[in-house]
């Protein structure tokens, strides 16, 4: 019994020292990490919606997840204070996981898409990041739902990745359209 308490205390001591050290390192790095993430997001927003000069973030709790795709953030894209579209940050399962920024204009087209994160297999699922696949979404009309084989070309050998991305995009488009109508009011 005595031995058990002694060992427990020693373990607690080591753990506390480790915790204090980590808290210290976390404190040192957290601002840099946050600003790196912000910078990446802002750059992503500019890439998907180059025409916009400012972005207004909406309350993302108004946008529930659709078909297991999480809507992480919703932005209204503005040029000279007028709403010209929206940008949606959506994440969901592909072969592994993907987080995508999608730009949608008020004219019911997509501007382009940008991957913030894609953890699929190199050489296969990762091909989604390449122009051959990604660029087919530039200025694409979105009056109809996207579907593989009809209006979207899949990546050969990576059907599951393609399917997952289309699912994320459809959810993002739906939320983006909603954001534009709500933003206009």
């Amino acid at each position: 019994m005595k031995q058990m308490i002694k060992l427990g205390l020693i373990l607690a001591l080591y753990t506390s020292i480790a915790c204090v050290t980590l808290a210290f390192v976390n404190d040192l790095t957290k601002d840099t990490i946050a600003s790196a993430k912000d910078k990446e997001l802002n750059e992503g927003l500019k890439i998907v919606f180059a025409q916009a000069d400012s972005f207004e973030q909406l309350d993302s709790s108004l946008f529930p997840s659709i078909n297991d795709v999480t809507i992480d953030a919703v932005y209204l894209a503005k040029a000279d204070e007028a709403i010209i579209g929206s940008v949606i940050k959506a994440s969901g399962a592909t072969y592994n996981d993907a987080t995508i920024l999608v730009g949608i204009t008020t004219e019911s087209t997509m501007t382009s898409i940008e991957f913030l994160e894609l953890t699929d297999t190199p050489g296969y699922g990762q091909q989604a990041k390449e122009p051959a696949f990604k660029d087919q979404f530039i200025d694409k009309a979105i009056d109809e739902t996207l579907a593989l084989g009809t209006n979207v070309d899949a990546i050969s050998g990576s059907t599951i990745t393609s399917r997952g991305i289309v699912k994320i995009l459809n959810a993002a488009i739906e939320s983006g359209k909603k954001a534009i109508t709500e933003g206009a009011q």
Partner: protein
Amino acid sequence: MKKYWQLFKNGLVKENPLLFLMIGLCSSLAVTTSFENGLGMGLALTFVLLMSEVLISLLRKLIPDSIRIPVFIIIIATFVTIVELLMKAYMPDLAKALGVFIPLIVVNCIIMGRVESFASKRTVAESAADALGMGFGYLWVLTGISIVRELFGNGTFIGMTLIPEQYTIGFFTGAPGGFFVFAIFIAVTRLIRVAYEKNKGEQK
């Protein structure tokens, strides 16, 4: 001094963790798709290995035998988290490319193995020499595999395109390619070692 050089050389070639001890393989196969990733992963592991071995060797008389494994894991996990935070802050691209394999260094068999079998019994200087040997042993094999895989799979090397895209072989960037290149590395180093030992035997 010669003793420390022997310990260093031991990890580098003779008991190379990847090629001869065959431990810590999963991370080495997963991250070696590009030269930068291989180098980054190798350096991260070397740092964690060195710090953990030195600290554990320093504390070896203060760690009760019956709870040594949890204490080792706490120490290793602390250094891994430090590396992860620093990498996310100052090298976000590399952190993204290595993804889950940085936190997974905690359970890397090379570190657990060396800490348990070496650092917990030897002096600080010997442990440091062993850690550097094992760390650089891991590093050179990792960078070697990544250079081959990146060159044949992507046709690039540190941003330069050496092989035109039409002639690259996608197989090398996938997992089977990793196994294949790794197996060739093992075969070639063993061949060299056998030849070397035979040569040495004849001279005697």
